[in-house]
């Protein structure tokens, strides 16, 4: 048996706190995938060396404080208006990297007009769209993305399709617009999917850097608190219930973006 070395051999760091992620406590619930999404964004920003050029527009929703959670410039938009604010910032500073981070109430409901028109103008901004099928911040009301039959505090008997209509598919919708350069859906329910989500965020930012047009990454996310589940149950719920309705996939990748 070899003796235990007194001095540990030189070690490769396998984990580091991303520079673009601020060293602060967040307001997210334990087990919420907002935290994972933040980490992926910060890693992508670091890898591309964009921290000093990036401006984040936070939404109204659980991520309302996200401008505090990144170690980069940021601001906080009125509910749903982040793409309009991002447009104002980007038009004045075309060389900077401008992103919004929006929930499904923020983007798919109150702010769908701003999202559609930003995509339609081929606004070179990047939207990270967190779809957790519910309004998290206000305590679990129905979102446009709430699944058929899903119980929420404003659809206590489950979403009854004849009343609010079918769930809204944002990636499919925005992919149909000529201004969209990169629109994909990924999921945060397991490690393999998280890795793919990270890659998509990197590509979306590269699309913006190359000035190819509008980019959006939809992330299927969990809200254990308002779904009334443990974090593992919630991840499982994404897989069993959300994935069939919101398939992960590449909804629009323009030719030039495929070369990135």
């Amino acid at each position, binding site marked *: 048996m070899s003796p235990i070395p007194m001095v540990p051999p030189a070690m490769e760091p396998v984990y580091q706190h991303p520079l673009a992620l*601020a060293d602060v406590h967040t307001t997210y619930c334990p087990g919420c995938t907002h935290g994972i999404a933040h980490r992926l964004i910060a890693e992508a920003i670091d890898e591309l060396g964009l*921290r*000093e*050029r*990036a*401006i984040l*527009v*936070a939404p109204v929703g659980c991520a*309302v*404080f996200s*401008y*505090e959670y*990144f*170690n*980069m*410039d*940021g*601001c*906080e*938009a*009125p509910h749903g*208006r982040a793409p*309009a*604010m*991002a*447009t*104002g*910032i*980007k*038009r*004045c*500073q075309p060389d*900077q*990297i401008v992103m919004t981070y929006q929930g499904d109430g923020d983007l798919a409901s109150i702010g769908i*007009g*701003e999202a559609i*028109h930003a995509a339609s103008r081929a606004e070179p901004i990047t939207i990270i769209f967190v779809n957790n099928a519910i309004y998290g911040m206000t305590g679990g009301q129905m979102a446009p993305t709430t699944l058929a039959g899903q119980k929420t505090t404003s659809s206590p008997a489950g979403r009854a399709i004849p009343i609010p209509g079918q769930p809204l598919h944002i990636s499919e919708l925005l992919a149909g617009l000529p201004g969209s350069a990169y629109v994909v859906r990924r999921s945060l329910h397991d490690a393999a999917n998280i890795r793919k989500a990270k890659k998509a965020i990197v590509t979306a930012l590269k699309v913006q850097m190359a000035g190819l047009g509008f980019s959006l990454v939809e992330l299927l996310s969990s809200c254990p608190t308002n779904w009334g589940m443990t974090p593992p149950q919630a991840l499982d719920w994404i897989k069993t219930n959300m994935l069939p309705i919101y398939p992960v996939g590449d909804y629009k990748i323009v030719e030039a973006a495929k070369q990135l």
Partner: protein
Amino acid sequence: MARQLMKGNVAIAEAALRAGLEAYFGYPITPQTELLEYLAQRMPELGRVFLQAESEIAAINMVYGAACAGARTMTSSSGPGMSLMQEGLSYIAGSDIPAVVVDVMRGGPGLGNIQPSQSDYFQVTRSAGHGDYHPIVLAPGSVQEAVDLTVLAFDLADHYRHLVILAADGLIGQMMEPCELPPMRPLPSSKPDYALTGAKDRPARRIASLYLKPEDGEAHNRKIQARLAQIRESEQRSVEHFTEDADFLVIGYGSAGRIAYSAVEAARAQGLRAGLFRPISLYPFPDIRLSQLLAQVEGCLVVEMNAGQMLEDVRLAAGHDLPVAFYGRMGGMVPTTEDVLSALKSAYSEFVAESAPVVGKVKG
């Protein structure tokens, strides 16, 4: 510089870009549209940002974004569009950043009509959005004044890092008058110290109107109120005519103030000692000077193109003892000089005990 004949909306637009407007976002609505159309041509010529937004909601939030980026930025609208902008205006005010908004007022409520009006006085002066604040509000009475106040609007916005609204009525926006434009200012070579330009060689900057803890929220509100107190002290603006020996005061702003001027002039010709007070800043309301004048007269008449909105500010300045009469037209109707003169004469005979005859000529 030579005077030139210009339509109010166009003159405001040209003055804005000469004052250093870097980014304009807007949505068409009469009687403001020429402003947007003119900038659609001029801003790209100068390599500056022009974008027709999908709505007034988007337009004001684009302005919010551009202001965060440190740009001199502006939008313009009228009644219904101003209503749609309320939330964005409040966020801008809550973030302590500068922006300029032009409201070319039309008849309301609802869709109303496209005729000139002053019916947004409450909306613009009382806060323009939710929460406890006031924008600075300037009301031009001629095309020349619209030009001058546009430049002032940008300077006040930058100086106080505060929202400024140019409240022009539809007559000012639509009429043509000779005016002298300001010289073209060079654009600033550096960005203001709050601008979100990317955290290069400095800590990250954040712009938000969110204060979760009530203690922080109150502290932020106190900061806004302290700034407003300073604005009330330093930025009251008004003009007056025939006030030296007046025993009766007519008060009106914008186009109504101009019509009132003609009525006061006619009243003078008939031997009445009437004077005119025309507020230029609607917020801060020029109550320091107005109170002095009201202490000197025996009664007053407020003239507005609405049902009596500034009237409330005048009553506050007048206190309990001074009688205040009102003449207003609504829904896009513009008062004639004769209308105002007859309201003036009847209030005058009611309020002024016995007037000493006008001696000599009092400067208008």
